[in-house]
């Protein structure tokens, strides 16, 4: 990690240069956008939150050997479940948030069930389930969940009482940020200090040893990917209840996919994901500012993220090779 920080700064400078931006001014804009006062910092934390939640989801699933590529779909289904509960005026933000987690968990468990009972590898089924979720999203926001009395393809805007609490009126900082950070510690504890977490990791490292130890590896796999989907659904919920207040066809915004590099960069460790999601949250907030002065500046985040993950994996591989 110590050698990785200079590497990522180099990537940042090179990417800025490739986008035709003066690297020094570019960095300044990014830094101000990400850390400049409470507005910048809150923007970083708000961008970090869905990244952290989907990242944690990936940590749990991947450690169990379930290669969940379906964060995107689980995020969407979670959001839609929340929109449904919100439409029914069933309860406050807590109830809606819970339903988003359950929606995502159900969608994740579906992929788990397909793998253990029908032999469809989770990496394949979750990709396909993403496509289905996108279609459900398009159908829902023009059909049953469409805001009444409008032609716009989106849900009704949440009432203020259904949204997550905000710290102050000056920033976007919402209580979902705290929830995500607390959950990263919870996931870390779960994996390191509980028998369930240990058995989950054992199933991922050596499923045959889990079987010989008389554990039900299939059940653990389904539980792991359900938990993973639940966290991704929660990411959708937090984004819906904390930031957008509305769901349209562009709701997903790649948050589910971005959870994968966040988890990998965090070494498939919950606290590592906390650190890497903060890093990417800052880059996201910073490049948002950059996009106001540079054409295509908001795309920079994807270039940097891709390059950073590749560099990280290559460096880790080389270190392993030398050992």
């Amino acid at each position, binding site marked *: 990690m110590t050698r990785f920080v200079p590497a990522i700064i180099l990537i940042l400078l090179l990417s800025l240069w490739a986008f035709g931006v003066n690297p020094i001014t570019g960095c300044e804009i990014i830094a101000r956008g990400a850390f400049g006062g409470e507005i910048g910092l809150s923007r970083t934390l708000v961008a970090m939150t869905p990244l952290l939640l989907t990242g944690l989801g990936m940590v749990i699933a991947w450690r169990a050997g379930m290669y969940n590529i379906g964060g995107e779909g689980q995020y969407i289904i979670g959001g839609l479940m929340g929109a449904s509960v919100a439409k029914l005026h069933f309860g406050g933000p807590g109830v809606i948030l819970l339903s988003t987690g359950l929606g995502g968990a159900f969608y994740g468990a579906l992929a788990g069930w397909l793998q253990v009972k029908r032999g469809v590898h989770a990496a394949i089924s979750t990709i396909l389930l993403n496509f289905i979720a996108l279609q459900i999203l398009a159908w829902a926001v023009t059909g049953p969940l469409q805001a009444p009395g409008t032609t716009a393809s989106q849900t009704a805007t949440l009432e203020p009482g259904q949204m997550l609490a905000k710290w102050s009126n000056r920033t976007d900082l919402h209580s979902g940020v705290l929830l995500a950070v607390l959950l990263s510690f919870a996931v870390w504890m779960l994996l*390191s*200090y*509980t*028998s*369930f*977490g*240990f*058995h989950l*990791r*054992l199933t991922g*490292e*050596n499923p*045959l*040893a*889990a*079987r*010989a*130890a*008389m*554990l039900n590896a299939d059940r653990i796999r389904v539980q792991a990917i359900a938990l993973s989907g639940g966290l991704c659904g929660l990411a959708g919920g937090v984004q819906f209840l904390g930031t957008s207040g509305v769901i349209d066809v562009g709701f997903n915004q790649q948050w589910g996919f971005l959870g994968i590099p966040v988890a990998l960069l965090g070494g498939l460790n919950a606290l590592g994901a906390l650190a890497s999601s903060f890093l990417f949250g800052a880059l996201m907030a910073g490049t948002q500012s950059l996009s106001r002065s540079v054409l295509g500046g908001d795309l920079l985040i994807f270039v940097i993220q891709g390059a950073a993950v590749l560099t990280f994996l290559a460096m880790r591989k080389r270190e392993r090779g030398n050992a």
Partner: protein
Amino acid sequence: MLTLSGITKRYGGLLALDGVSIEFAPGEIHAVIGENGAGKSTLMNVLGGFIAPDSGTGSLGTSTPLPFGDPRRTRHLGIEMVHQHFVLVPEFSVAENLALSAIKSLSGALDLESATSKHRTLAARLGWTLDFNARTGSLPVGIQQRVELLKSLAAGGTVIVLDEPTAVLSDEEVSELFRVMGELRDEGRAVVLVAHKLREVLAVADRITVLRNGRIVGSTLADGTTEHELQTWMTGEALSPIASSSTIAGEICLEARGLQVSGDRGEEAIRGIDLVVRHGEVVGIGGVDGNGQVELAEAIVGIRSSRSTSLRRPEQIGYIPQDRHADALALTMSIKENFLIGSTTGPLLMPKAVNKGARSLIDKYNIKAQDINATVGSLSGGNQQKVVVSRVMERQPSLLVAVNPTRGLDFQATKFVHTAIGEAAQRGMAVLLISTDRDEIRDLATSVHRLEGGRI
């Protein structure tokens, strides 16, 4: 003549090889023996070009220097290794695995028939019935080793290095292998055998070299030595025989009637057997590998479904699987976590209790481990097996099912496992010992069955 001189290899603080000089002559079977950790594997890896030594030289014939650290060029010189852990592609058929090493070019059509004709002739000459179309991963280990052997023999090296080749074989297969080794020697090849079973070594080797703590402590013609002398060289002490188990059997612990078990491919692996194991009794099940051993064990333990007219077994069953790498350990996880496999109590893992438990097992069972946070894969094979055995024994199950519990282990580790099993039986544990090692069954079992074709 293959000569190594002054080979030294250091891993951190550990001197794995300390100025080893050794010669392997054509037309000779030369056995290199020693305890686990004596440096046998390191020496063989240097020989095979997998490891470059820190100092020392090697040459083939009078002038060709050995390309240390370059396994591909080493093979080109005609030095062939047969590894203890197979290097086969499980998803490939036997023919495909053999063709993989025989085909020199990446272009052109794949003609499995002609690519493996040499192997087929060899197999026929050795009297081996081998299904060349079978998926390799579905074959029992004993058969997989034949594939591995065929691969190296067909490549036609002038030096054949066999690393623990008998560990997985039954007695019949061992004598067959020895016949083959004799033929290779008579054809003028240098045959290098890495082994630890003295009786076998004395039966087949012409020359025996003993390693201890990275040094050569003795080298002798097989004719001029005894098992006792070799043992003393290897361990630095003479070993006392194990106390034999109690013969007083108690109440019935396991009773199976008409047990039928299916294998992975749906074949009938166990075809209706009756089995009774009483407390304090070690029931030995011998026989050649691939006759339903693993399926029987897994059915008794309860991780493989079975049919039977009646099956009575206790709640607490301890299981020592035959393949510690595949079934018993998570090599990438820490030593302390591997102690927990199958032995977690309660929903939480308290770090202090986990550390304390690991340290006490390490002390109690004399496991050579520096750091309980290191991966279990960093331990030697014997110590890995001790991790498996100790964690099973510590739970004091009423029934222990062990499949080849000492496969690939040296004297001290074997003695440790045997003593642990024998003492547990004396304390009243019922033990089902499934082993292809006839000596092991004879030393430990109070009653013996033989498993053949899924029947007793």
